[in-house]
């Protein structure tokens, strides 16, 4: 017994990455264990009911799970954990959603007590129709998603056998001229297709758009793509035109500005969730065509109305794309039950070592506040404190230093507070992009940045998502939205798109600076975010602003 895995009784699995069997083990446990953190030496996975049910949904049984744990475990596996795994997995599939030749969608069970328990639960009231026989009950087709969600919360997840509609066929092919699908992209698209629906988790810059395109090429049907904002929609369109047989005419944009419905339609979350007179007029887009595939970009940001709408779309294939399934609102379970289970996941560092995303050097710079500011901070109202600490003027000087050090390298300065960004923009004499900047102006600035015409941009959180700026090499984060971990991931992600190798053949190393005010809540929040980076395997350094010159 000298396996790479240590199974803890609190259901965490510790994987020693330097072990010779580590890769085999990682592959073996990935289907049922959630990767919790992946720092440099020991990765932590966790067994959760959700993960175990995902594994059941993907066709793994408890026997396999237990066998894997026993095979790779270095020490004895706690007995109660094995029992728990078996019991948890046995709960999945006692209830099944099926197509009944006469009654349409039905909920059936082989275990009558479970069915009775579920029928008596308050939460399912109104979702179920008539009792057909002892083991079967009719389900209102529109409640398919909601029912699955509720059953998951009740601890009796239903296995969905009701199948998918094919949707309106539309020829889509990948055009691999001068590029090809990376192995993990192909694996991700395949495992999605075999699973039917689900979420693919890949780091920023790893080419999630391509995975979406590959999924469309598998579906060969009309597709609705939901993205976070207009700029991102345009990037999707460009990418699809470049990578697939689709022409620009076949792709429609459905945003605040343009409302086109084409065989492939890209819509923004914002327009979908616009509310007029208490209704969401644009949600009808979901019914506008017989979509064969729905792509949710940045699924961790999926807004609540779309969740509700998605519940009605359970008969259509759905793929979610994201860098982190961490939702600060804790609704990961809803993503699982409505979009589908996690179908693919890979540690960032693995993809980095294959050269698909750029390595990053993360540095936290601690800024010491002068006494006057500390006093102001100490006496400030609690809700004002973060803003006060994050927007301290000291950061401007440090930012200027850092920009000067990296003169010539494309640099982004990212912040949360507009007045701070204004100040920085003025001090650095750099253009600024915020929510108020027009789309046209944004596009222009991004293009200029991409082409090297400008090498310094001050951006607000609008640039957090889906903006492709492959040339960016340095990011300076001056403030963030409290301790948001996924924001950290997104911001780092801006830097990770690998650029072309430089003239000396060296690939770029991204530099990610975070400016933090010492001894304030800013530092506490930063710690939370840094921890996330460290858990993703990014070692970081902390240096004092005064030592910056020497570092």
């Amino acid at each position, binding site marked *: 017994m000298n396996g790479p895995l240590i199974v803890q009784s609190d259901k965490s699995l510790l994987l020693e990455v330097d072990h010779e069997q580590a890769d085999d083990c990682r592959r073996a446990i990935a289907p049922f264990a959630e990767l919790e953190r992946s720092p440099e030496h020991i990765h932590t996975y966790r067994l959760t009911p959700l993960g175990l049910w995902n594994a059941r949904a993907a066709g793994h049984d408890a026997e396999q799970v237990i066998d894997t744990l026993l095979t790779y475990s270095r020490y004895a596996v706690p007995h109660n954990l094995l029992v728990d795994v078996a019991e948890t997995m046995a709960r999945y599939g006692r209830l099944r959603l099926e197509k009944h030749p006469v009654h349409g969608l039905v909920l059936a069970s082989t275990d009558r007590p479970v069915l009775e328990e579920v029928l008596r639960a308050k939460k399912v009231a109104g979702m179920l129709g008539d009792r057909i026989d002892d083991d079967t009950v009719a389900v209102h087709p529109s409640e398919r998603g909601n029912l699955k969600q509720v059953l998951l919360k009740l601890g009796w997840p239903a296995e969905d056998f009701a199948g998918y509609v094919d949707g309106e066929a539309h020829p889509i092919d990948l055009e691999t001229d001068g590029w090809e699908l990376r192995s993990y992209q192909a694996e991700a698209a395949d495992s999605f297709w075999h699973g039917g629906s689900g979420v693919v988790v890949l780091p920023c810059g790893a080419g999630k758009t391509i995975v979406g395109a590959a999924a469309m090429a598998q579906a060969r049907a009309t597709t609705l793509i939901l993205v976070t904002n207009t700029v991102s929609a345009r990037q999707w369109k460009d990418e699809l035109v470049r990578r697939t047989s689709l022409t620009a005419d076949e792709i429609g944009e459905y945003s605040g500005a343009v409302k086109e419905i084409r065989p492939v339609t890209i819509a923004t979350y914002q327009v979908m969730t616009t509310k007029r007179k208490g209704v969401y007029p644009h949600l009808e887009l979901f019914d506008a065509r017989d979509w064969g595939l729905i792509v949710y970009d940045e699924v961790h940001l999926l807004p609540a109305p779309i969740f509700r709408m998605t519940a009605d779309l359970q008969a259509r294939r759905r793929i979610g794309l994201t860098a982190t399934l961490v939702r600060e609102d804790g609704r990961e379970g809803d993503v699982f039950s409505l979009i589908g289970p996690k179908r693919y996941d890979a540690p960032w560092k693995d993809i980095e070592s294959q050269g698909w995303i750029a390595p990053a050097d993360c540095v936290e710079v601690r800024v010491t506040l002068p006494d006057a500011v500390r006093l102001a901070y100490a006496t400030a109202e609690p809700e004002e404190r973060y803003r006060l600490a994050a927007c301290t003027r000291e950061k401007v000087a440090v930012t200027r230093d850092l920009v000067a050090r990296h003169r010539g390298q494309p640099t982004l300065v990212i912040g949360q507070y507009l007045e701070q960004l204004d100040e920085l923009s003025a001090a650095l004499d750099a253009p600024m992009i915020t929510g108020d900047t027009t789309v046209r102006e944004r596009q222009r600035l991004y293009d200029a940045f991409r082409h090297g015409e400008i090498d310094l941009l001050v951006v607000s959180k609008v640039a957090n998502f889906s903006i492709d700026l492959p040339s960016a090499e340095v990011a300076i984060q001056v403030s963030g939205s409290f301790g948001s971990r996924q924001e950290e991931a997104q911001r780092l992600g801006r830097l990770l798109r690998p650029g072309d190798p430089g003239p000396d053949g060296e690939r770029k190393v991204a530099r990610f600076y975070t400016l933090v005010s010492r001894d304030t809540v800013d530092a506490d929040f930063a710690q939370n975010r840094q921890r996330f980076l460290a858990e993703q395997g990014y070692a970081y350094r*902390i240096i004092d602003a005064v030592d910056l010159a020497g570092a």
Partner: protein
Amino acid sequence: MGDEATRTAGHRSLAEQLRSWTDDQVAELLTSRPDLTTPAPHDFSQLASRATIRSSVARALDSLTRGELSVLDALVVAGQTTDEELVGIVHAETSYVAATLARLRALALAWDSPEGLRPLSGVADCLAGGVDGGVSGLRPRTPDAAPLNVVRERLDALSEEARALLDHVVAAGGEATAGSARRNLRPEDAATPAEELLSRGLLTPGRDDLLVVPGEVGLALRGGRTTTGPVDLVPDLATAERPSRLTESAAAGAAGEFCRRTELLLEWWSTRPATALRTGGLGVRELKAAAAHLQLTEPDTALVVETASAAGLVATRADVDGNPVWVPTDAFDTWLDAEPAARWTTLARAWLTSARLPGLVGSRGTDDKPWNALTPELSSMLMPETRALTLAALAEVPPGHALASGTGLPSLVARLTWLRPRRPRSRADQVAWTLAEAAALGVTGLDALSPYGRALVAGDDPTPLLAAALPEPVDHVLIQADLTAVAPGPVESGIARSLQLVADIESRGAATVYRFTTSSLRRALDAGWTAAEVHAFLASVSRTPVPQPLTYLVDDAVRTFGQVRVGYAESFVRSDDEAALAALVRHPKAASLGLRLLAPTVLVSTTPVDVLLVRLRELGVAPVVEGPDGTVRVGRPDVLRARTPRQRVAAQDDARHAAQVAAAVRSLRAGDAAARVRPAAAVSPAGALSALRDAIERRTAVVIGFTDNQGVVGERTVDPISVEGGQLTAHDRTADDVRTFAVHRISRVTPAP
């Protein structure tokens, strides 16, 4: 069953037979029937008398297997008989019957009279419990029973009606009311089926005008044997193959886990004692809290608590308010110092011999009150026996095999029911608990006994075997950039203690995950560590370079450490007149006041306000008292310990009992020698009882001196039948009737002429 068939010449009485035994045989009897030794019997007649008391016989029967009970039952049916004949009527191997008879003789449940082997008179009454208890349900044979073939002929010659009636009586339990049937007829004169049966001796008159089917008829109906099926078949255990690699590692894992959890719980109770119930138990809320702390289910937690208590690691004491609380004992400190394997041995041995029933915790008793852990009543004297028998049965399963899942437990229950059929119905529950507890303790793994578990059951020291099975302790950790450190195995205790000081434990198990935080580092600084020491310690235990963020965190924690200082003062003095305060501090008479200048305008004093006021006035200042204000106390709560309860260890018990037995045998011999020179007539009350019981066993008549209700002393010749509840039941020859006599009115007992 004539005398000529008996192999041994026979003894006049049980006492005489016992007297003829060697000292070893007597000692063996006293060991296997411990109730005979206390108080030590004076002589062999008293010993024999005591052995025939109903409660003692019942106890002896409790320790018999179903097969042994069946043989004993056959002996009761046969009346007095020979070994050879008994072999004939017991459905079992000859060697089994012979071995069982030897055991019955050794237990003094049967003895050799001149007329043949006899069961003790109380045995027939004590045999109960139906077929499962080894009872065939047959009546004793009539004294002049016809041989088997004769009975068979008579049965064959019966009319159909008579045969049907007989079958009916047998099916109804072998007894029937006589009705108007005439007795003492010849078969030809019989008018009814009942009379026909009576006339052929197939029914005989019993007590209370009942007709009974005599033993020889029952035997004939069952083909000459007391049972139709063999009685010496031990139920097999249902087993399945299971690689010992898996079972052993599962067991060792559980063993390590159990020790770790015990340590965790008791460390927790050291600083936060658990409130004890008024009845002495541990309340439901406390158990829930402990379960949450241990991340265990409540039943498993109850086992941890009960085992720790059985091992003397936890006991009650009064807290500061005088309420009883559960805290670790000083034995816990000794236990902590031991090697992990030795710790387990302590716990496992305590569990094995403990009478506690942790399996009941959480369920409700007969009064509908929930059973609480550590309640004194939560025990059963049968539990150690159940544990020993269960584990002994498991020890029969060869390595590489384990109890089959599903069928294993019922087969184990069946085995125990066969071994001790007279034990109560709760046996099945107890076996299930034992299996679950053994798994939780790591005595078994996946329902197979571990190698060290075998040693434990066999009474050997399991420590070295377990130590080999436990993972090697590690002396390093892997420190990572996310400020965690992972110890990939059990950590050496010194390093573990230091790590627990500088970092918080995030996950426990075979490995330990530590997290460094500002507060954990402060804790180390509080304990007197310096920054250099923390750095040096981290560098020495980490197998990889210490990540820069951690180094930074340590320095940052040191930077802010001690910026605010807290001290102790009884009172303060403040004044805007700095000069006055300065003068006060330097005043020669103020030295004893413990004044210290904190700031130019503030003094603190170690003197209480009431004293300080008076003294300051003496010094010529006119102080006023400022509004009340609190003081801050520092220090950590005391680690509480109770005294280890004195407990009898099973081994001590055994030794004590062995010594008692030896002493008893010696005094028996001496007493007997003395008794032999005394007159045969029994004059003391105890002697009278022995003499009466002896007469019952020998079925002989005695003359008793009896004082009747009028105070008249008379002599009667009686055939004693039984002695119970202070009453002698005997057939009074003078009155030709069965009478009862109060034993205390019997002044003497002499053998009938």
